[in-house]
Structure formats: structure tokens, C-alpha cells
């Protein structure tokens, strides 16, 4: 089917592309007689863009070329995907394409044809901004005659608020971001991560902060990573190693790893770097003076219920990381190997990757006594010299964009040679280092590759066949992409405006100072004030209450035609809060669209599901989302209804849902159905329930 539709494109591809021995290279000469062998990428604003064999793109004023070449440029058809944003970027992207194509060639495979503008715009919006484009955004792109429009839209989306939301969702799944764990709220942790993403803080810095954070969760959101697993430092370390370093060590927590090199001892030696870090019950351990004073302050409260609430409040305030100054890591009671005895003290020691002996992971930063253990660990881990740190995040970001990692699973990079394309994997790691862990720049390179801008692979891969990236893989939208796209259909691009900032409010309301000089009386006053404000957070369990009063006010305002401030209040329809998933409870409640569509419960890292289920399909067919999308006050319906003919109405809906115009037979079927008792509302239901809507081409 695809072959039939896209035959002309496929044929074009056979003679284009960046293969080094390609015939479309020609020799260009400038007015001074200098020569350049390059392929023609297009003309814009009097500049000609010529790409040489290593991928670099020259931008030359057209009138600097020889008269003959000026003439040639006017008749030649530009190769490839249009003009890239800058020459270095084009070169970086081309290198990746060459490695991908080398891998395909080895397996005697061909890359997929280039994706159409319609396929591209929907995909790039979903991959970078986490939602489908609106009808207007689609039309703006499709109708833009500029040859640099793909590069431009990539840059625009990378700097859009949607980018921050979408990347947050990815990390929220990876890091098990949950509003509530250990009977405490982690809002400050979420806000902190959102801030890091918005400021585009380099990944090594982000992780370094998480590993070395100190103090109270309420005051320093970065502590959230270690405190997520308060009191479970072995579990936390196991996740740290697999999440950030692709070191598959979970087995070694209990025994020597059966396949990889990890021993249980090595695991404990790594854990010893956290042996002087207290994450459970810090600030309220029985011995400290503060604890005694707090007990006194609580006891002085009038009734039992208040005392209980005060205890919860102090639990929240006690959630903190403190250094004890002494590593207390010991081997487990059932340690069974001959090199040590159960219960032996373990000294901290960093691991080396056996396949890369020339490049020791702990180069130059081996155990210094004057430095905190965690600092040593964090420096080693996030160093550009660590052979796994850059590779892991590079592979993860590749998967984020292409739907499947160069090495799967992304949590196991023990053997990079087991990857489907080891050279590509190593190159991506090197790129991550070259770009100084700037994730935005890295994604920018990936999206500018031809590999990314090809059609999605449409056939079923035979079992155990490696995926060599003839293009991105067809994948179902993530739960967050699907939800954010639904909200986009109803309210349009404004959906990106609302930001929750719950951490700030939470910390302000609940923080208690136990500084020196605090007296039980002063503490008591602080506790009473905090308890009063705590009520808005629904005690110990619920998310901040969606204040009924506020909701009513908002509805009144809407009814009176007042301008709603979408940055402060997200729109609500039929009980659904139409904000981006990143601004809703983490994770959403069980029966929410997001969860039914596979949002992780945030108990297990990287556990977002892209599977269907019967309840999910029941929800798509009969739930609130389809109703809200099909109502008269939904943007997609309003826009279509404003069109004059049924044909234009159908076309408007197609652009909104699929970012393309309907084909003649599709238009015919839909218009006929409209004449045969189906309404606009029915039509939105139908488009919403297609496979085409939930899959990303």
C-alpha cells in the first residue's frame, strides 16, 4: 500500500541521500575559480546551500558562484529535506545518518522513504512538544514555502513550553515521580526538575545535584531523588546504577550477577558511597535536641487529633538528607562468598567497565578522604570520562525520539557491543559529551537527521530481528501524548499555558524552622499556622483540593464572558481539568484517562505501558474525553462548524485530528455519513477512535 502511494518519493530516494559515493555530488565553482564538490540543498534569500561529503553545509551568496553554476542552481531540484539551521548541525546530523546507513547496508537493507510534511509535522510536534499540532499549526507548516521550514519548526518546538512538559513526563516515568510516597508530598522535587528542564541545565549537572543534594525536601527539591527511596538505600542505588549508567546490577544486590561481571561485593562497595547518608528519620531521630523540643511542642497541643496532625507535619519537615560523617555500610547477613564475612564493614570502591580498560571510569577521582563520599560518587558517575553515563542518556534520548533504543533495554548497557549498531551507540555517546550534556542540542541534532525525517516502518518485524532504523518505528502515543492531544483538540495551543507550581505553595505552607534558638512555644505557633494551611492540601492523602469554590468562581467568570487567565486556572469541562499531564497529579488517579491509557503508577521505573486493554477502549468509546472533544464548546467542533460546506467541515476535522487533508474516498465516505444521520459530534467520535489517531507515524 505504502509502496503504491509513495512510489515517486521512493524512486527519488534511490538517487539522493548522503551516501559518500552518491552521483548527485557535483563540482561547484565560484567567481574566483575555487571549487567545491557538494550536493545542492536549496536556495533561500539569495543564499545557496551546498553540502559536502562530510555533511557540512556551506551557505554561499548566489552571486558569488560562476554564472554557469548560478544557472544550474536555478534548474536543479534541491536534495534532501530542505535547509538545516546551521552548518555544524547539518554535519552532526549527517554523521548519524551515515552510521545508520552503514548499519542498514551491512544487513542489506534500505532506509524508508522520506516522510511527507504532514507526517513530519504531526510526529515532530508529538516528539518534541508532546502533543499533536492544532489545525492552524499544521496549516502554517504545510503552507510555508520556505525550504528551511523543518529546521525552523524543530527549533521553535524545542523552545516551546510543550517541550518542558514532554521531557518532564519522560523523566517522571524514569524517576518514578509521585506526588505522594512515604506519607509525604514530593511537589518540591517535581518543581525542581521542571525548573532544571526549563533552564535546560545540562544532564550531568542535573544528576550531580540529585546525588549530592542535602537538607530538607521542603527546602531543596533536588533531595527528592534520594528521598524517594528513604530508608532503602540499596534499592535506590540499584535504580541509580541501572537508570543513569545502564549497569544491570539488580541481581548483585542479593548475589553475584549470573551473567554480567557484577559481584555482590562490588554492589556493596558502591553502596558504601551512600553509607554516611541518612535519608530516613533524619531530623527526628530520638537523640537530637530538636527531636526532644518537637516532642514537647506536640505534647503541648490541645487535642489528640491536632497532635496526630502535628506529627504528620513534622514527618514532612523531617524528610531530609543528612550526612552522618561515618560510613556504616556492612555486608548482608547472608553474604556467602569467601572473600569476606557477613556483616563486615564495606569500604567504598568504584567500579570499572571491563570492556573499556583503557578508559577507567574513575580516572583521577579515586577515593579522597577529605571529600564527602557522595560527592566522589557523583563526580565519578557524571564525568564525561565515565563510559556509561553519556551513553545511557544518549540511548534514552534516542529512544525518546525514535521509539526504540539503539540498545534495549535502556537500563542494560553492560555490553554495548550487543547493541544493534555499536558504532552508532558509541558515536551518540560521544555526541552527548561533545554537546556537554545539553539535551536540547542533542535532540535538535537527532530531529535534523534524515533518519528521523523518514517514514515510520510499517511492516511487522520478525521476532528477534534487530531494528536498524530505516526510519522511526511506528508507536502508539504515550499516555501523556494522548491526553495532551485530547486537551489540544478541545482548547487548542492554549493548553500549554497552565503551570501548576505546587511545590512552592506546599513548602510555604508546611515548612517549619527548627533553627537554633527556637523554643517549644515558637515551634508550637509555627505548627499551628502550618496546620491551618495544611488543610488545603487535604490532610495526608489527596492532592491539593480542587477547591470547589474556586471552580464555581471560574465557571461564573466563564459564563460572564470574562477573560479566563489560563496561566492561573486551567479550563475544566465535564469535570476534566484540561491541563497538560505534567501539571496534573503525578500519577493521575487510577480511573483517569492517563492511567487507563498506560501512565505509569510510578512504582516501577520506566513502566509506562503502550498496550491496549478493554477498559481503555471502553473509555475511548464511551468515556468523558470523547464527549468533551465532541461537544459544541470544543475548539475542534467550533472550527469545523464555522466552515461552509460539509466537505470543508470534514477537511477541517481531518486537519485537527490527523494533521492532513482527507483523501477523496475518505472525504466521500465522511460526507455521505453526515448526510445519512451522523452529526459532527459522531464524526469526532469516529476520528478519535481510529488507530490513525493514537499511533504516531
Amino acid at each position: 500500500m505504502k509502496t503504491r502511494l509513495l512510489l515517486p518519493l521512493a524512486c527519488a530516494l534511490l538517487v539522493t541521500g548522503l551516501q559518500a559515493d552518491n552521483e548527485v555530488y557535483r563540482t561547484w565553482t565560484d567567481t574566483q575559480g575555487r571549487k567545491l564538490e557538494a550536493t545542492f540543498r536549496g536556495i533561500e534569500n539569495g543564499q545557496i546551500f551546498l553540502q559536502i561529503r562530510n555533511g557540512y553545509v556551506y551557505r554561499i551568496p548566489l552571486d558569488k558562484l560562476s554564472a554557469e553554476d548560478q544557472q544550474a542552481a536555478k534548474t536543479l531540484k534541491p536534495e534532501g529535506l530542505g535547509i538545516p539551521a546551521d552548518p555544524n548541525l547539518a554535519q552532526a546530523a549527517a554523521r548519524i545518518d551515515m552510521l545508520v546507513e552503514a548499519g542498514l547496508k551491512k544487513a542489506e537493507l534500505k532506509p524508508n522513504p522520506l516522510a511527507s510534511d504532514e507526517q513530519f509535522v504531526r510526529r515532530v510536534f508529538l516528539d518534541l512538544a508532546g502533543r499533536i499540532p492544532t489545525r492552524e499549526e499544521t496549516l502554517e507548516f504545510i503552507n510555508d514555502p520556505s525550504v528551511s521550514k523543518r529546521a525552523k519548526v524543530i527549533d521553535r518546538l524545542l523552545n516551546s513550553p510543550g517541550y518542558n512538559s514532554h521531557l518532564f513526563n519522560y523523566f517522571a516515568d524514569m524517576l518514578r515521580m509521585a506526588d505522594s510516597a512515604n506519607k509525604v508530598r514530593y511537589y518540591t522535587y517535581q518543581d525542581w526538575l521542571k525548573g532544571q528542564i526549563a533552564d535546560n541545565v545540562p544532564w550531568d549537572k542535573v544528576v550531580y545535584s540529585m546525588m549530592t543534594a542535602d537538607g530538607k525536601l521542603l527546602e531543596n527539591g533536588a533531595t527528592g531523588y534520594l528521598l524517594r527511596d528513604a530508608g532503602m538505600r540499596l534499592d535506590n542505588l540499584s535504580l541509580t546504577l541501572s537508570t543513569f549508567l545502564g549497569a544491570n546490577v539488580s541481581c548483585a544486590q542479593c548475589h553475584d550477577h549470573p551473567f554480567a561481571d557484577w559481584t555482590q561485593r562490588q554492589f556493596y562497595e558502591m553502596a558504601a558511597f551512600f553509607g554516611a547518608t541518612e535519608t530516613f528519620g533524619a531530623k527526628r531521630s530520638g537523640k537530637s535536641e530538636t527531636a526532644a523540643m518537637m516532642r514537647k511542642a506536640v505534647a503541648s497541643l490541645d487535642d489528640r487529633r491536632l497532635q496526630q496532625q502535628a506529627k504528620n507535619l513534622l514527618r514532612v519537615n523531617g524528610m531530609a538528607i543528612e550526612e552522618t560523617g561515618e560510613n556504616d555500610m556492612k555486608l548482608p547477613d547472608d553474604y556467602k562468598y569467601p572473600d569476606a564475612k557477613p556483616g563486615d564493614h564495606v569500604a567504598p570502591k568504584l567500579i570499572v567497565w571491563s570492556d573499556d580498560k583503557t578508559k577507567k571510569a574513575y580516572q583521577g577521582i579515586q577515593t579522597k578522604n577529605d571529600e564527602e563520599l557522595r560527592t566522589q560518587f557523583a563526580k565519578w558517575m557524571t564525568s564525561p570520562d565515565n563510559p556509561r553515563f553519556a551513553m545511557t542518556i544518549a540511548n534514552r534520548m534516542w529512544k525518546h525520539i525514535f521509539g526504540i533504543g539503539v540498545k534495549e533495554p535502556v537500563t542494560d548497557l553492560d555490553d554495548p557491543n550487543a547493541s544493534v549498531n555499536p558504532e552508532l551507540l558509541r558515536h551518540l555517546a560521544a555526541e552527548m559529551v561533545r554537546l556537554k550534556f545539553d539535551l536540547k542540542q542533542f535532540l535538535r541534532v537527532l530531529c535534523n537527521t534524515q533518519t528521523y525525517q523518514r517514514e515510520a516502518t510499517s511492516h511487522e518485524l520478525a521476532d528477534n530481528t534487530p531494528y536498524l532504523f530505516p526510519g522511526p518505528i511506528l508507536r502508539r502515543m504515550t499516555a501523556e501524548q494522548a491526553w495532551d492531544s485530547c486537551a489540544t483538540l478541545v482548547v487548542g495551543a492554549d493548553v500549554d499555558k497552565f503551570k501548576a507550581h505546587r511545590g512552592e505553595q506546599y513548602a510555604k505552607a508546611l515548612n517549619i524552622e527548627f533553627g537554633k534558638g527556637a523554643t517549644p512555644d515558637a515551634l508550637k505557633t509555627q505548627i499551628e499556622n502550618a496546620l491551618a494551611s495544611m488543610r488545603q492540601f487535604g490532610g495526608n492523602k489527596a492532592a491539593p483540593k480542587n477547591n470547589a469554590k474556586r471552580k464555581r468562581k471560574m465557571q461564573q467568570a466563564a459564563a460572564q464572558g470574562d477573560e479566563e487567565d489560563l496561566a492561573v486556572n486551567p479550563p475544566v469541562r465535564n469535570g476534566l481539568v484540561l491541563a497538560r499531564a505534567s501539571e496534573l497529579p503525578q500519577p493521575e488517579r487510577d480511573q483517569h484517562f492517563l492511567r487507563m491509557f498506560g501512565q505509569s503508577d510510578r512504582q516501577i521505573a520506566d513502566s509506562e505501558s503502550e498496550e491496549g486493554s478493554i477498559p481503555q477502549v471502553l473509555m475511548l468509546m464511551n468515556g468523558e474525553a470523547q464527549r468533551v472533544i465532541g461537544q459544541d464548546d470544543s475548539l475542534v467542533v467550533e472550527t469545523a462548524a464555522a466552515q461552509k460546506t460539509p466537505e470543508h467541515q470534514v477537511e477541517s476535522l481531518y486537519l485537527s485530528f490527523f494533521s492532513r487533508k482527507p483523501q477523496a474516498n475518505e472525504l466521500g465516505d465522511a460526507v455521505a455519513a453526515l448526510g445519512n444521520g451522523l452529526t459532527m459530534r459522531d464524526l469526532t467520535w469516529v476520528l478519535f477512535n481510529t488507530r490513525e489517531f493514537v499511533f504516531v507515524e
Partner: protein
Amino acid sequence: MSLPNKLDPLSRRAFCERWAQAALGVTVLNGVGGRSFAAETATINPATGPGFGKAKNVIFLQMVGGMTHIDTLDPKDGPTQGPKAPISTKAGFQLGGTMENLAKQADKISIIRSMSSKTGVHASGQYLIRCGYEQRGTIKHPNIGAWAQHFKGSSHKTLPSSVCVNRQPQNGNGFFPSSFAPLPILDPDSGLQYAQSDASPEQLIKRLVLLDQIDARFRERFQTAEVKSYTQFYDKTVSIMSSTDLEAFQLTDEPEALKEKYGRNKFGQGCLLARRLVEKGIRYIEVAKGGWDMHNNIDEGLEEHGAELDVALSALLDDLKERGLLESTLVVLCSEFGRGPKINGNAGRDHHPKVFSTLLAGGGIKGGFVYGASDKEGMAVADKQTSPQDFLSTIGWSLGLPIDEVVMSPSNRPFTVGDKGKAVMELFA
């Protein structure tokens, strides 16, 4: 009321057939499950030993987080005892102090006290005790419900043969078709949500017909497993919307007193729902209960979660017995691992896969029986080590599945129910 229930039976049938043929090319009323592996009960060997095939249904209670065996099914004296002293039962064995109600039902249950596994990681332990294989990146293994559907076909005309309560399905179908996946009920009180369309039957048919036309191009272009699986889910979902047995998922018909007896919490109501589904002919029901990862303050944890388990499980056994369903229904209770004998610095217990306990009742299982033993502290197996594979093979045996039969996955790798485990024959009466 579900959509076609508004129609008389004849029109309903006509609707289903018309829709099915017009829109999706399958005959709904023949049942969708089992069509890829059309095996009938009759093809299975007749009983080959005690207990074989005694269970028609299974209720699989999975304690998530690592249930402390010492405080529940395998109590100890001395320093490892935990917050509450063991209680004696008339069956002669003791239970953990929190199991007050279960103690009165000890004559209905068997306990395996010599379970042992190698993984102390939650996700992989949960996977292993549910599917019998270690979790791998390359293949997904089926749960026993999917195995049963493979060997015995669907247990119900329109409803799924497997349901999972309080949990996501998480690949329960394994390498079998996605239509073998358990139907998740995430909240027993709300039951099966969204079972009713907001369009009239006529309107819905028109919608479905147009949906099929409009989406045909995409489905033809992308014939991948994921897309096909979605189409299967749409098939199955419409068949469920047309089912007359939808009330199986509604607890509203149950008397308040009974709801109370099971405990007003998700697990209690989940157990009640499981009993209801057994009555309706759903073969395999998983009910999950979290809260067992008691690293900190185990006394508080047991007060809440131990008590919830005790109340719900006892009510379930009672209820099944009263209705005469216990003989044909196997109830099992398991967890990914136990918890260590040592109380740690945070007044909790840590992961302990080396020895732990499971419980079985009904479905031909002996009452008042203990199989195997842990040592004095509850640290290691002292007698008759039993693996998760043995445990699952026992369930398969009770259901009458050919547990030795090798089935090839679509990737052409050999698998058996319970990965060649041995059914524990001593458990059967």
C-alpha cells in the same frame, strides 16, 4: 444498562451480527477468545492423579511488596517474632497474631512454608510468582489464566476468561494473543466503567461502520502487531458492550452486610467481586493487594494491611463454602518473597526471598494442612523446598491443565505451564 439491552433478544442478536459483519468481519457471538488456539476441554487427557482438574476457577490473591511470612502464615517464637504473638488454631498449626479470623478457618486451608526464590527485587519477583519464568527483555510469559484459556478455551461467551482486580494487566497474556489478557478492574466499587455508549444503538452502528471505512487505509498500511492488537481490543470491547452478563462487574447488587464482612477497602471488595465473577463463570481472577513492603514500622503496616487480608480472605472462604463453590474454586495467596527474621533499625523487615509462605484452599486442596517448613528463625528452608514454578504447577494441575505439555511461542521457543515445576501432590485431598 448496556447498549443492546434496550433491544429485545432477537434485535440484539441482529445488531451484533450486523455490526460485526459490517464493521469488523468477525462473528461476535461465537466468542472471540480462544479462536487462535481452538482447543477444547475434551482434548485434554483425563484425570491423571488426585486433585487433577478439581478446580474450575481460580482466585489468585497476590500480595504486592513482599508479605512478611513470619507475621502471617509462618509465625515464630523468640526474637524474630514481630509485633504480635502467634495464635493457635484448631487445625494444630499456628498463624501470625494478625490472622485472627483466618485462624478460625484453618480447617479449610493448606500452607506451604518452604517457598524459596532467588530474586529480592519486587518487579522480577512478582513476575516470577505470577508467570513461573524469570522476566526477560525478549519475551513475555503468560499467567495461568492465559494458559488455561489456551488449553481449555474461553470460559464465557462474551466476557473475558480472566479478570484482574486492583492491578493493571501487565502482559498477563504473555505470548498468547492480546485477547487472552486479563480484564483489569482497577476499582472494584466502580466495576467495569464506561460499558454504555452515549449514542443510540442505531447511531452507534453507523459510527462503527464509518470508523471501519475511515481507518481501513491506516490498518492496511501498518499491519504491525500493535495495530492489530488494538483492532482486536475494539472487537472484544463491542462484544462486551453487547453482553447480557455485564452485571457481573457490579457490586451494587450485593447486600451491605456482606460488603461489610469482606472489609470496606479495595482488597476486601475485590475479593467479593472475585466471588461474583466465579459465579458468572469467569475462570481466572487475580486480586492484588499492595502495602506489604514493610521496611519501616512493620507494626503499623500489619495493623492496616494484615488486618485487611485477614478479614477479606476469611470472608471469601466462608462465602465460597456457603455457596458450595469452594470445592470447584481454588483460592491461592502468594507474594513475591517474604521478609527477613531480623527487625531492622527502622522497626521494619527487609526483603527475604530465601524462604516464605503461600496459602491454598478449595479446588481439591486439603484443609488444615502444612507442607514444608522453614527453620527456627524463619531464615531458610528446613524441609521440602518449593519453588514458584512448583507452586504454579500445582495451580495448573488443580485446573486440569497438561502441565508437562510443551507449547511453542510464536518466536518458536518451548514453554510449559510453570516452567517444568512439580505439582505438590501432598496438598491434594
